[in-house]
């Protein structure tokens, strides 16, 4: 189905289109949400929020970008807000300091000596390092590295200039290199 048709059906509120849109975009949305949040439950909750927002606010979609770009935009905003809210709540509940300490310990504990790292460990090491980046750097890395989007698309999704995207990715990779080398050093 053409994108324009999908948008038209969504605007008309045709029942069948919801499942179709979900089937088309669920993997993409889940991929972003699972990397931008810290647990499976949180990611699934974010995915539901994303689709409800897409279905509810389709009339505000101006069609000046691809539908996928708009869905990415919603996904990123929802995940950033969720993470921010979670940080505020944990800070207010005084678990903040223990969690911070716990996260650092967890990241280090999961690295095993030597080069034969399990796939899940490998993912965990890199994900933990990405999770420690500031929100904008983290978003830029996820969209570029895992979603393989162009700088132009990333700039549209994040609402920043092309040069800002370049700068965010540059700094993010510098930070990640330092963190990953430090993690490895601890176990050698």
């Amino acid at each position, binding site marked *: 189905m053409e994108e324009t048709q999908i948008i038209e059906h969504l605007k008309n509120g045709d029942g069948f289109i919801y499942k179709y849109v979900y089937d088309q975009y669920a993997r993409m949305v889940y991929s972003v949400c699972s990397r931008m949040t810290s647990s*499976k439950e949180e990611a699934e909750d974010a*995915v*539901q929020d994303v689709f*409800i927002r897409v279905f509810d606010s389709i009339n505000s979609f101006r069609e000046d970008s691809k539908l996928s770009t708009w869905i990415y935009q919603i996904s990123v905003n929802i995940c950033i807000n969720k993470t921010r809210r979670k940080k505020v709540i944990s800070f207010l509940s005084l678990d903040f300091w223990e969690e911070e300490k716990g996260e650092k310990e967890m990241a280090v504990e999961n690295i095993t000596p030597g*080069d034969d790292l399990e796939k899940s460990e490998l*993912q965990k090491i*890199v994900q933990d390092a990405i999770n420690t980046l500031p929100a904008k750097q983290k978003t830029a890395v996820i969209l570029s590295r895992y979603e393989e989007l162009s700088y132009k698309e990333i700039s549209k999704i994040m609402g920043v200039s092309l040069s800002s995207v370049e700068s965010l*990715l540059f700094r993010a990779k510098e930070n990640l290199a330092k963190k*990953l080398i430090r993690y*490895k050093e601890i176990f050698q």
Partner: protein
Amino acid sequence: MKHKKIQKKFLLYIDGDLSETEKLLIDQHLDECAECKRHFEELANIWNEERILESPLPSPALWYDLKDRMEKEAEKSNPFRAIVGNAKLLLNSVITVGVVVIAIFIGSRFGNLLSPQNASQNVTYAQSENSRDEFGMSYFDAVPPNSIAKDIFITGLDKGGIQK
């Protein structure tokens, strides 16, 4: 210091984000420094291996959870349900207010019987045997002798109440 500066460029080097001059500088350093070369190889291994791993997939039940949530939200926004919901809220408020009014009425009606000021007045109504029953005299007869209620009532009687 130089090592740290070089090391932080490793991911940019691996992803091909550096200029030719910068690449050359790093290549030269890696030829001279075994420690940095080891770090570079390890980092390249982690970074490249992790990239090609499969993306996580949503659970198959997620669509049904979403559908369920959409149905619930649609029900909430249904105008008929909203009217019924408001009517229920109004009815609950009316019942609560009614119960409070009845409680105040009962309290003021029967609370007067035990107040000292009204005890003597009540006695004037209680001058016949009929009124004695009407005000529950038989109840007061059963009240223990040291009870405050009985004291109040008897004080009222002493001031010119019932005379048998």
